[in-house]
């Protein structure tokens, strides 16, 4: 059952590469949230109940509802309709996604040892690498946050690998998520939007030599 969600997650990544509308990013994020919820639900039931519930609630609330809503608010506040042409054509991005996925699947095959569950790694690696790639190719800071959140989700998946032994790590991942990903970055996007009247990165490259 977990595998289904993992595959779904991989597909969302491809959609990230495909889509150009900012609104769609938000949607995809919330979808990812639901997928993660599913993953947690089917894999972490070995935990004692409180941790389990906490994680479930976090995924369903934060990842799939609060964050997307908040981001949507920010998006509206800054009148972001659609992403400008990314610096790399979509066509190539898709190729990159596929390559990353393949690479990470192979990698996990290499890493495989019986004590830990490498099945989460597959997409999580892909997700992290793709997140970085996503940030690199996009020129507006809203998308940067999105990319960052993609990395977050990857890390969350990764943390599930030890989730059964160390739920603490999962909680930390969540903390990272909530604190950095949303509040601070969101706040700053608004600030920047107000100050610079735009969230294009070119506005934000004064500090250089």
């Amino acid at each position, binding site marked *: 059952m977990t595998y289904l969600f993992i595959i779904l997650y991989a597909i969302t990544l491809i959609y990230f590469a495909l889509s150009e509308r900012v609104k769609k990013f938000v949607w995809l994020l919330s979808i990812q949230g639901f997928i993660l919820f599913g993953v947690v639900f089917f894999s972490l039931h070995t935990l004692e109940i409180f941790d389990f519930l906490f994680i479930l609630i976090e995924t369903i609330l934060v990842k799939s509802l609060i964050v997307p809503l908040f981001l949507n608010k920010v998006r509206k506040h800054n009148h972001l309709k659609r992403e400008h042409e990314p610096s790399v054509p979509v066509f190539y991005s898709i190729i990159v996604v596929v390559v990353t996925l393949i690479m990470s699947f192979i990698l996990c095959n290499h890493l495989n040892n019986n004590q830990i569950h490498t099945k989460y790694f597959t997409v999580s690696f892909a997700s992290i*690498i793709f997140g*970085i790639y996503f*940030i*690199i190719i996009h020129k507006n800071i809203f998308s940067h946050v999105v990319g960052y959140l993609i990395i977050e989700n990857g890390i969350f998946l990764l943390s599930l690998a030890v989730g059964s032994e160390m739920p603490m790590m999962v909680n930390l991942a969540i903390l990272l998520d909530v604190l950095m990903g949303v509040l601070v970055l969101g706040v700053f996007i608004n600030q920047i939007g107000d100050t610079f009247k735009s969230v294009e*990165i070119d506005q*934000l*490259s*004064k500090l*250089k030599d």
Partner: protein
Amino acid sequence: MTVLLTFILFFTQKDIQYYVGLLTHLAIIIITSIWAVSAFVSATTLSIAFMPFLGETLNFEIDQLTAFFILVINFTILTGIIYAKGYIHPYIKNKDKTEIAWHFFNFLWLHISMLLVVMLRDALAFLLVWEIMSLSSFFLVIFESEKAETLKIGIKYLIQMHIGVVFLMVAFILAYIQTGAAFSFDGLSVYFASHNPFWLFILFFLGFGIKAGFIPLHSWLPHAHPAAPSHVSGVMSGVMIKMGIYGILRVLMYIHHDLFNIGVFILIISLSSGLIGVSLAIVQHDVKKLLAYHSIENIGIIGIGIGMGTIGLAEDIPILAVLGFGGGILHILNHSLFKSLLFYTAGSVYKQTHTRNIEHLGGLIKKMPKTALLFLLGALAISGLPPFNGFISEFLIYSGMFKSLHSAGLFTDVILMFSFAGLVIIGGLALFCFTKVFSIIFLGTARSSKVEQAIEVNPTMLIPNFLIGFVIILIGFVPILFMQPLSQIVALFTIDTKAINLLIPALNSISLSSGIFIALIGIIWLLRSWQQKRQIIKQGDTWGCGYTGANPALHQYTATSYADNFVQLSSKLVHMKKEFTDFGEAEIFPQNRVFETHSSDVFEDNLLTKPSNILLKVFYKIAVFQTGKIQHYLLYALVFLIVIFFLTYFNLI
């Protein structure tokens, strides 16, 4: 102790800062000189506990070599600080209290650090004080820091000194890690005993040679000296560059085998330094730059002495060893004397005329006779003419060479021949150069209006010069006084110093001949005055060979034309560029023209300026990483991760 005293400067008033500095200097001078003298008297090595350093305590080790250097340093600093009073005076009013304090503070620290350099043996401490010496001298050099040029020079100087210290550091470390002996000079003996000393010595030589200004490591020297105020350049050229020589001597003390190559190496470098240095000196117009090049030349002469001595040790010719080292070491003293004298007098001229370009000077002997005569004294001494001190040291070297000609082997003989021929040429060129500079500055008539208001400087700027002059003449006339301590120093390098005693009669008769010389001059002078009393002495213009419209101020010989026939000989070396516009075809009535000549230092251009410029350009070109775009920053991280990953995957690291 006195170290704390130096900081008082900052809290004192402008007008007494000088005296505070003077007193501190005096205190240091007295203490250290007592140590030095007692080292000579007791003919042993004093060891005085100094301070805790990285756990263990640090000692002063004062052997004869150190003592000798201490005395030289103290004397030069003494004259320097006395001279400084007059020289600094015009600057005081337009400089801030702290700046003046900073200046004297650095002068003090230059003094202290030089003393420490010669007194410390621990390598790390040595490097520390060595760099402090460079630093303080650097801040002294940029005293007139309003000029951008001065700063540029200063930074060049700082960088090159740093490179020098890096060489020394590497050399020490290499010696340390290959033997594990004590991390100090004494530790070197272990290394040299067990390894081939040549390459490590080369490292040391590079490190110390930059400070000493051997060609081709000299390029800081001709710039730093003119930039510095004269009392500083006097001290720098007088003793600071000798610290390099000290280092080389100190290292040589620990080498006891395979000395021949080292000796030949030193000799070749020194000969080229001497010849090239003096040749470049001849074409200079800036008097202090000219003197700086002469420092290079004299370092070369010292080096010749040392190289001779080393070869003597290697070939086991005691007389060559003794007289080589003896001559070299004596020349250290002599050069410190006449070079500081020359710099001080040149400084006085600069103070009165505000120009260092000798083409604007002339006829100053009538305006500032004392300064002129002192300069003449220095000029005669530095040209190595009897009966002055420069001759004595060169005489030692010469007689060492000639005495050992017969007993030396073939190869050594050829080397010897070349070196005394070289030494002669150096002497001749020095004579050529100083006839030029003296007569252009002080003789003839004024070449520009700058000279008019020049007057004799005040006594405080003359006293030190007279002091130095006295010692110069003393050494020149009774060299015998200085032979006993000299033999003590030389005894550190070679065991049997009998050879010096063989020289005693010669030196005595030199004093005698000098006496006769002076007597002859006196007698003939009397004769002439007696004769001229009975004749009419007329005043008449210089004879213009029938051309009565001659105007000496315009038509008298200039420095450039004086040097010209030499420049033709050595055009490859001195790179004299002439800038002028040729006459046009239809130009019947030619209008005014400018004719300029510039000389440039071949070695500096090709070894230093060009490569460093290229390096800087390249670095500037590739400095494009701070783009200000977050994507790029993350890209670095990603690339780094992937690269390391693959390096690991293929077991490259």
